């Protein structure tokens, strides 16, 4: 990324506004996810409505940012780092929007569990742990984007493995639990859905980090064996 | 700065326009003065010479009686001298101009040559006459002939033709030359297919302007000794000559001759005022010859330029 300004200051303005919109959208998704985690661990059904409403704002931002990207491509024909930035942002917002959708799914799952009067079982504690790990991944991927820090982005990509491992262990625990006590099946399935959503958030954070690596280094490291990613 | 109001803008324009109109008036006056002089000159000749505008005047030889004297030998002489001048000066001038523009390397020598060509154009014509007297008349033994006169005038107009050839060549865009060279043409191919044809209108203009100047020249012709009283025409090729021989193809070149300006000069220097009428009439004819040469130059240039666009 070049520290020089463009000959066209308007182009600079357009690009920096685009980036700050992405960070703003990222901030909204982060609050959605952390609110969903809070709701899950404390049983705050009231905040679910707020999370769902925030999702609408996130969707609006996604559309607005995509529109800006299209305009920049049409008017400026960006090349090299500018092209990677616009192209990367357009993909990052897709992942951010889906991460927001996952937060909404968590919130709705929480509402089902608590409205049915079922407290999350002790095995659900693990969910809170990976949820925080996934949220940290997302936060770091956005930091990596804000600072154009590809080593940080690569760390996030590597962290996704841990989340996946932990998700599998939660699944095994919950399956054992359901076999021991069939009455907990309904709740356990809801918890599985929530854990699944958390794991997906981790995947989106990883995708965002991959886009950041593309923006910064011009390398496309998706779908490659891990040893190539460092 | 406060923007000007409409009134102020109009005042500024009006002030500017005053000088516009002033200059227009001065310009028209100058132009009218120059034109008036020429018109007066021509009108004077026409009025003075009017009684001589008969066929006889064109087909009579010089005579001691003003009313019987004509300009036959003079205009034929002028035409023949011009023919020799053109035949000599055009190839030489065009070749020299072409060489200087297309072949010669830019160095001190070519710079000196260039300066001197311009200087040659400024040399008084009488000097050419003296030069020709020494070289053509005596050294080469051409005598006081059409050939000597034609070559002398050719020298005189050579700088004009060289300069106009160079100007015409320079007006050809470099991209045409490059376009030709880029397909693998040699310099000569480029000159033959492009430079010479495209420079032709300009060269032709220079040639005719040069000839128009040459046809009115008196001094060098007198210097080499043109006769002022000639009652015969140069021998027509293969016509019967005296003593039963036949004239050769080029015999006319070495024939004595006279030309229009000399005829006029001769008439004006006679004491009999009747010859002044002849002089005026001949002057008018010479004028028409020069003007029509210029007209032909303008017409040809226009016709040729129409086809050449870039």
């Amino acid at each position, binding site marked *: 990324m*070049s520290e*020089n*300004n*463009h*000959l*066209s200051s308007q*182009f600079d303005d357009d690009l920096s506004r685009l980036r700050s919109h992405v960070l703003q959208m990222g901030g909204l998704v982060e609050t959605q996810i952390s609110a969903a985690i809070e709701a899950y661990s404390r049983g705050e059904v009231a905040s679910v409505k707020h999370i769902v409403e925030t999702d609408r704002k996130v969707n609006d931002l996604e559309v607005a940012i995509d529109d800006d990207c299209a305009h920049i491509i049409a008017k*400026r*024909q*960006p*090349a*090299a*780092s*500018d*092209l*990677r930035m616009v192209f990367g942002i357009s993909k990052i917002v897709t992942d951010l929007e889906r991460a927001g959708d996952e937060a909404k799914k968590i919130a709705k799952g929480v509402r089902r569990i608590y409205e049915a009067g079922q407290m999350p079982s002790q095995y659900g504690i693990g969910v809170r742990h990976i949820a925080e790990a996934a949220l940290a991944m997302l936060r770091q991927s956005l930091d990596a984007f804000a600072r154009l820090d590809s080593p940080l982005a690569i760390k996030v990509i590597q962290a996704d493995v841990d989340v996946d491992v932990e998700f599998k262990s939660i699944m095994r625990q919950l399956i054992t639990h359901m076999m021991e006590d069939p009455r907990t099946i309904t709740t356990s399935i809801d918890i599985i859905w929530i854990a699944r959503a958390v794991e997906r958030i981790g995947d989106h954070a990883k995708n965002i980090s991959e886009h950041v690596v593309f923006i910064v*280094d*011009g*390398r*496309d490291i998706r779908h490659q064996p891990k040893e190539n990613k460092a | 700065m406060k923007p000007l109001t409409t009134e102020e803008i109009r005042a500024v324009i009006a002030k500017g326009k005053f000088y516009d109109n002033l200059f227009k008036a001065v310009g028209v006056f100058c132009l009218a003065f120059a034109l008036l002089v020429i018109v007066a000159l021509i009108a004077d000749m026409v009025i003075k010479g009017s009684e001589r505008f008969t066929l006889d005047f064109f087909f009579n030889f010089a005579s001691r009686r003003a009313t019987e004297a004509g300009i036959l030998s003079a205009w034929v002489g002028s035409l023949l001298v011009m023919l020799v001048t053109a035949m000599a000066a055009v190839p030489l001038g065009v070749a020299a101009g072409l060489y200087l523009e297309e072949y010669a*390397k*830019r160095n001190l020598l070519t710079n000196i040559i260039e300066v001197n060509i311009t200087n040659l154009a400024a040399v008084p014509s009488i000097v050419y006459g003296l030069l020709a007297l020494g070289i053509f008349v005596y050294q080469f033994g051409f005598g006081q002939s059409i050939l000597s006169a034609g070559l002398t005038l050719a020298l005189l107009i050579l700088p004009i033709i060289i300069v106009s050839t160079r100007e015409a060549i320079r007006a050809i*865009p470099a*991209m*045409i*030359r*490059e*376009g*030709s*060279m*880029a*397909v*693998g*043409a*040699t310099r000569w*191919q480029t000159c033959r*297919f*492009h430079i010479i044809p*495209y420079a032709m209108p300009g060269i032709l203009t220079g040639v005719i302007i040069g000839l128009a100047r040459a046809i009115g020249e008196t001094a060098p012709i007198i210097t080499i000794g043109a006769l002022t009283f000639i009652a015969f025409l140069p021998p027509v090729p293969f016509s019967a000559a005296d003593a039963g021989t036949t004239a050769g193809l080029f015999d006319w070149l070495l024939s004595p001759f006279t030309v229009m300006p000399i005829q006029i000069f001769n008439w004006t220097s006679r004491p009999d005022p009747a010859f002044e009428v002849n002089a005026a009439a001949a002057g008018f004819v010479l004028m028409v010859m020069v003007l029509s040469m210029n007209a032909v130059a303008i017409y040809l240039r226009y016709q040729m330029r129409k*086809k*050449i*666009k*870039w």
Partner: protein
Amino acid sequence: MESPMQIQETPTLKAEARNLNFFYGENKALRNINMPIYDKKVTALIGPSGCGKSTYLRSFNRMHDLYPGNRYEGEIRFFPDNTNLLGADVDPIEVRMRIGMVFQKPNPFPKTIFENVAYGLRVRGETNKRVLEDKVEHALKGAAIWEEVKDRLPEQAPNLSGGQQQRLCIARALATDPELLLFDEPTSALDPIATGAIEELIHELKKRVTILIVTHNMQQAARVSDYTAYMYLGEMIEFGKTDEIFIKPQDKRTEDYITGRMG
């Protein structure tokens, strides 16, 4: 970064600049240029005004020899015969017979359309009318202008539109089957439609001939070329596959130029 869009095979060399320096009198205009030109590929030269890209291009057909005071150092090797185009023993006319050129401004001769295209053949001494007619038709078809001018061959070429004139100039260059075709900003005097036609033509031509093109228009370089070289102040800053230069240039100066951060 491997993708099916990229050129997988190793291309053969058509020409190669080796330690090329060029001087306009005392003024060094090209500095130690080393660069390959690949056979049947389009190579674009980009860079700001005065960077030497046109000077470099015009070294290939020895155009600089037309003017005094110009001097080359180093060599441009031309394959397959490994001739040094700049060699003292190589006649510039021989070079120009093998390498065609299309100029910035269309420069048709003020002659007929037919004569414009036939000129290169006439220069080579071809006089057979049938051969001339065949080759002119073939060249005009190659330059995608045959349909427009086939009924107007005896007309004056400068009466054509700018875009047609430029395609006529391409036909003139094609008529003599050049091995390498040089384009010096061929569309800078043309409107976008005519530009599009020329770009499409370049794409067609690379099946038959190697192309080296100088362009001010970066998008044009990105659209038409397989390889791109970025030049700055007489130096070759970066040479690479066009896809890579326009997505991830290696040199910061290339990056700044391509993204409009110069100056």
